[in-house]
């Protein structure tokens, strides 16, 4: 990690009795692409809203490039780019009017910083006279990202930019983030899609207002130390139910076209397949596999229950 650019210390946030963030502490390095990974209700949006100065923490402090998110909020707002989870541009303004509006608010012009958004904006520029409300989901996103970047921020916050977006647009968005990172922009992005963790330099697993782990994705995968197998069979659902009944089974979950099985003890996969076949009476195919990020997240969830 380069020198810390974002410094978060013991941030908590409560609404009355309900605590939505509990003592969050971590740093993000300059130029780092940092991911907040976790399901809805985990506290990702609340944390981002605190960092972009829209919400005050109940406890703790957070600084971005030395500026405090509470005391220095005015100064900070000119330095950060923020793309909220919900499309928040003016639907009744055109594409170009929206961009102009944000440029003007930040006392700059489209021309001055065009080079920053060129890659992204050029894709929607043919529709610059169309109202934002009439754009497709993918195009709305490109516009929102252009508007978040037009004042040349030092750091970009994106709150679930890929939620509800199809697989093609998701890949495109991550390509754009990669390019922005190359220009040394610090990026903090949240997502409920576990596979996107692999595209970040480091990720924080968030669940129920707490951080379960912070590490580079490769480290998280290496740390996974349970025996893990993939099991395939014709009657998927019954195979799953039967696997759960076996004494050796710790967890069994569907993963695409196979079932991921963790066991209490390490068993040779051929021997394991024999055990499964004699238990289920089905023809099955078992292999020892390496964990992916989602396996790791689920293991953490079960451990912290």
């Amino acid at each position, binding site marked *: 990690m380069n020198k810390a650019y974002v410094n978060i210390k013991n941030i908590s946030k409560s609404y009355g009795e309900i605590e939505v963030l509990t003592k969050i502490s971590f740093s993000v390095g300059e130029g780092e692409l940092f991911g907040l990974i976790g399901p809805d209700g985990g506290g990702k949006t609340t944390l981002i809203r605190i960092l972009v100065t829209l919400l005050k923490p109940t406890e703790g402090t957070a600084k971005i490039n030395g500026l405090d998110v509470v005391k220095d909020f005015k100064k900070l707002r000119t330095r950060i780019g923020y793309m909220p989870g919900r499309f928040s541009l003016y639907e009744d303004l055109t594409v170009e009017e929206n961009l102009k509006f944000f440029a003007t608010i930040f006392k700059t012009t489209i021309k001055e910083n065009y080079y920053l958004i060129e890659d992204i904006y050029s894709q929607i520029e043919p529709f610059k006279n169309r109202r934002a409300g009439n754009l497709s989901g993918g195009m709305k996103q490109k516009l929102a990202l252009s508007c978040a970047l037009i004042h040349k921020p030092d750091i970009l916050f994106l709150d*679930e930019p890929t939620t*509800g977006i*199809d697989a093609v647009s*998701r890949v495109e968005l991550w390509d754009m983030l990669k390019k922005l990172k190359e220009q040394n922009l610090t990026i903090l992005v949240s997502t*409920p*899609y576990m596979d996107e963790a692999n595209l970040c330099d480091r990720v924080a697993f968030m*669940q129920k207002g707490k951080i379960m782990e912070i590490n580079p994705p490769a480290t998280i995968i290496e740390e996974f130390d349970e025996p893990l197998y993939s099991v395939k069979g014709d009657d998927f659902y019954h195979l799953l139910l039967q696997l759960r009944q076996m004494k050796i089974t710790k967890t069994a979950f569907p993963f695409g076209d196979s079932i991921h099985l963790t066991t209490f003890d390490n068993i040779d996969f051929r021997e394991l397949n024999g055990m499964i076949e004699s238990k289920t009476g089905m023809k099955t195919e078992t292999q020892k596999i390496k964990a992916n990020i989602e396996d790791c997240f689920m293991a953490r969830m079960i451990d912290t229950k």
Partner: protein
Amino acid sequence: MERGNNYIVEVDNLTKKFGDFVAVDNISFKVKKGEIFGFLGANGAGKTTAMKMLTGLLSPSAGKALVAGWNVEKNPEKVKLNIGYMSQKFSLYDDMRVNENIRLYAGIYKISGKEIKTKINILLEELKMQDLRKKLVGDLPLGWKQKLAFAIAMVHDPPVVFLDEPTSGVDPITRRQFWEMIYKASSGGTTIFVTTHYLDEAEYCTRASIMVDGQIKALDTPENLKKSFEVDNMQEVFLKLARGK
């Protein structure tokens, strides 16, 4: 009512135009009873418009569709009574209790008061939510809400249920528990018609279709789709098709 075969959804050259724009372009397919049918496509490909026609909410511009034996254009109200539907946006009442929500929807589908009581008990037991009966739905975690919404979509035992992105934003364990509810319903004979952006979930479907620009560009079992596109997973099938414009 036109009935008497193995198909629960039969779509014939279905088309929807908005002015000059063709949102759904002449699609035809059939869904078998008890299938888990994945209805995939990029944003703006026409999935939602097609779903709205199949659930009797939108009248087609041309073509024909039979759902649960009823013609969606001529008998949309019959269609609505005979299907289950879980919308993308959470649509239970947050300020009502769990049991009140079940009672409301059961009542809408004209289930008798006595039967409703048994229904509530069975449903809560299956969901392992007996202790949450009196809880406000708004206070439940998202995963529980989604499971409850699914169960309520099936409260009147429809032969087919339409699920529109039911697992969006749900944690990975609950997402899988949700799919187990789908398997269970399907193994009990209910047909499931489901959309999703999680392409690992497309692998769980009996068959899946992929829509591009208003048309169905592929429809087969996940295994055959992967074979014919020469790729390892449904994500790559999807990227190949949806990008190849």
